[in-house]
């Protein structure tokens, strides 16, 4: 609860503060302060199991250690984003404090989407986190790609929201018991699902798959990620996607968990399509930014295994995956922003010019591939254990690891460019890097290695209280 209130309030503070801030660099510091406050408040709530605010929510939101730990991870990753990319956010345009305000509103939506207990609050959370993103995507106003990306995102996003609402309506009306929005009250009676519930489930599945860019509803993602300013792509591809997944899993586990065998085939097809399309297309990308966009689709395929299995390993795995994937991707995008040339060849010879950037980029790429000793491996391990434990569709697990092997190809292409190829252009580039930036990158890389050896640092918190 703390996170929801404080992010909403701080967002408004940033928005109106923009009138009073004199210098361009002030909003960044206010944003960091606000985010730190939110993290502390959320942490206090996690430890004390009680929020500062008591409202009669009529059980529309639930706060347990799982939700709060996820929110903590999301907030910490956003803090990392601010610290690494604060100066780059200032470079996007003139309305700097509005950008931060919008990010805070997105975080508010993330918190609601992680803790919802009724379909209406699910809708509220998803919308609150989506609408500011449409604006953020468009913030590079003079760039045609940014405008196109925003329009694409907005139109397709609104369309999918409509489908979501329709699905909610069907679930409400088709409930075997008295109609209710509470997800724990959704019952189907014995035997197969009634038609209305089935339609509702499929519509919601389509809408949520759109939000997390799972195939075949992923077509917006590469263009939007490519067109948006890289800083906001970094935010969208990691934290927002993870929030989408948490909402997805929460809904399906509570509402449809008992009928898993009836809809598992849909998830199987989605996972197979996502992994295949994401990995195969990423192989052919020349631009690292687009490659990372497709890679995020491929990683989303892995994260969908949590929906496939819905057991303990899956739930722990999704939070671990969020952390591992966000840290690595935020780090990579932070390095990417500093390069002039976004193509793979643009990375040639980075090791000679900027050894720290090269080394940390390698750690991030190894984590995304899933090499042991990195958090990415632990995350994939948990997902694979969850999927094998479920016992159905074992071929899907083999297919997933084969796609992970394909992913090694395009991640290692970048490592090869960094270390083993000579460059002409990088030597003359003007680097806008502070020592603090390098230190932060090293801290992030160390975190990834530490989590790779001790994933229990995060997973222990998930069982703190229920």
């Amino acid at each position, binding site marked *: 609860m703390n996170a929801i209130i404080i992010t909403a309030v701080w967002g408004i503070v940033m928005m109106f503060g923009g009138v009073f801030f004199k210098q361009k660099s002030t909003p960044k510091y206010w944003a960091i302060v606000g985010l730190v406050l939110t993290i502390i408040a959320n942490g206090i709530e996690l430890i004390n199991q009680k929020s500062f605010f008591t409202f009669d929510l009529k059980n529309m939101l639930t706060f347990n250690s799982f939700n709060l730990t996820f929110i903590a991870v999301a907030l910490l990753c956003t803090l990392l984003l601010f610290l690494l990319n604060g100066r780059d956010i200032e470079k996007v345009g003139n309305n700097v404090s509005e950008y931060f305000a919008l990010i805070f509103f997105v975080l508010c939506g993330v918190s609601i989407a992680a803790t919802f207990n009724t379909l209406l609050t699910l809708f509220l959370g998803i919308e609150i986190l989506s609408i500011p993103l449409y604006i953020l995507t468009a913030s590079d106003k003079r760039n045609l790609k940014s405008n196109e990306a925003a329009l694409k995102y907005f139109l397709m996003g609104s369309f999918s929201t409509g489908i979501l609402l329709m699905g909610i309506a069907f679930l409400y009306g088709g409930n075997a018991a008295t109609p209710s929005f509470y997800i724990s009250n959704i019952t189907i009676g014995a035997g197969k699902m009634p038609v209305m519930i089935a339609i509702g489930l499929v519509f919601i599945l389509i809408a949520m798959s759109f939000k997390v860019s799972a195939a075949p509803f992923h077509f917006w993602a590469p263009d939007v990620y490519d067109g948006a300013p890289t800083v906001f792509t970094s935010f969208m591809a990691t934290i927002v996607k993870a929030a989408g997944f948490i909402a997805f899993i929460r809904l399906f586990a509570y509402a449809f968990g008992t009928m898993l065998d009836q809809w598992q085939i849909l998830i199987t097809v989605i996972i197979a399509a996502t992994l295949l399309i994401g990995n195969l297309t990423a192989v052919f990308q020349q631009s690292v930014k687009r490659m990372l966009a497709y890679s995020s689709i491929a990683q989303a395929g892995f994260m969908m295994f949590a929906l496939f299995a819905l057991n303990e390993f899956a739930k722990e795995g999704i939070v671990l995956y969020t952390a591992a994937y966000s840290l690595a991707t935020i780090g990579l995008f932070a390095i990417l922003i500093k390069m002039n040339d976004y193509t793979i060849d643009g990375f040639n010879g980075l090791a000679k010019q900027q050894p720290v950037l090269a080394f940390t980029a390698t750690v991030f790429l190894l984590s995304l591939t899933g090499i*042991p000793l990195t958090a990415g491996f632990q995350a994939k391990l948990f997902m694979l254990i969850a999927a094998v434990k479920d016992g159905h569709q074992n071929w899907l697990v083999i297919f997933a690891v084969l796609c992970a092997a394909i992913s090694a190809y395009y991640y290692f292409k970048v490592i090869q460019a960094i270390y083993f190829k000579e460059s002409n252009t990088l030597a003359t580039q003007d680097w806008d890097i502070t020592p603090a930036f390098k230190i932060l990158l090293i801290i992030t890389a160390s975190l990834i290695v530490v989590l790779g050896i001790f994933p229990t640092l995060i997973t222990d918190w998930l069982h703190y209280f229920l």
Partner: protein
Amino acid sequence: MDPKNISVTFPHVLIFFPLMAGLITFLFKKDAAVKSWALFSSIITLCVSLLSLYYANDSALSGLAFNYEWLKYLGASFSVSLDGMGRLLTFLTAISFPVIFVATYNTNYKNANIFYGLLLLTQAGLMGVFAASDALIFYFFWELAIIPVYFLCSKWGGEKRLQATFKFFIYTFTGSLLMLVGIIYVYLHTAPVYDVAHAVISEHSFALSYFYAAQLSANQQNWLFWLFFIAFAIKMPVFPFHTWQPDTYEQSPSAVTMVLSGVMVKMGLFGVIRWLLPMFPLAVAKFDNVVILLSIIGIVYASLLATRQDDLKRLVAYSSIAHIGLMSATIFTTKQIGLEGVMIQMFNHGINIIGLWIVIEIIEMQLGVRKISQLAGVAHKAPVLTIMLVVIAFANIALPLTNAFVGEFMMFSGLFQFNVWFAVAALVSIILAAMYTLNMVQKVFYGTANSLTDTIKEISVNEQVVLSIVVVAIFLTGIYPQPLFNLTKDTVIDIITRFK
């Protein structure tokens, strides 16, 4: 020094000392200091390994196992232990690195601190694979041994190094991932772990003993067998997964090739013996003919290709496939004499092939070419080198009095006991080995020297020392192999009893 007072144990020193030494090596600046430090630390590792062999018969010594709780609720712990085969292979790893460092002492590598650091990290990874008694740790070290090799080959290799190393890495990575799925599946079928009060600590366990005890039906064993076997087959390599090997061996720098062929291929053989055979006996009984057939096809195919090779490195690469193919075929016969032969041959093959690579490295360093067609009459100006090489070549053919003879004789006995026709087909490889090896020796070393080989100088002291060590080892183990048998007896008996 009372062995019972040792509070650190052999396997975990063997892993962490090279790891620390490797990390420290990155900090050095001067090349000479780097080489001395690398050599010094690898010799210390060798001494630790010799100590572990010395105390091998002291069963009261608990210093051969080390267990540290890691992911308790998952059932994974950092547990490493050494049995006979483990001690043999860690000894092979420990002795290879000083030999390699001495042999390449005069070669100057750019950024030597990173080169030697990565090599020492590879050693740590290899030790970890051989010592692991927890499946997750095994997988960790299995992957981690390859990462430094990837960087070593890509940076210091030959012209086409990037493609060759990339292919090697993706190939091996795919196999490892399939093995990971297999590991997870077996993990989920292990029994729960209880503490002293019979409360459940974790639902399943990654520990080796739990993996051995997992109850798997014949159907499950069948497809799990293939998941694991593909990973090991890519590593060894066994036909048809061998295509990465000749290119990688040719393109990688010599020191790395020595590590790859001398020690790293043993990871695959070790994996089969330690993990595959005990866990899936029903599947082994079902697929043994298939695997042996594939191995033998590989032996004959590789030997035939070796006879056509002009490049020395590729010739040795194909010869290595043939030797390893024989070992992998013999393992699946599960006959006692065959398995004993495999054990000592793992060690012998490592020594012999490192010797071969050292000679090739010397020739390439001095003359700049590796092609048989361009070399002739090296013996005129470098007789010592030639004598050493001839002995190693005889070991490659498995002539009696050399170490390889003992191993191969026993392996063929095992294969013969299993199926006469397989043995006959495999024996063809000995003839072919004699053909290509002696052909190479005659063309390169004897005959009239041409203008290029006239410039060769006699080998230097350090090279003489290491080659002498190799030659002595060849004869010693050829005449008196009993210590190696005693060392690995417990592992062989363990496997045989499973298949009775």
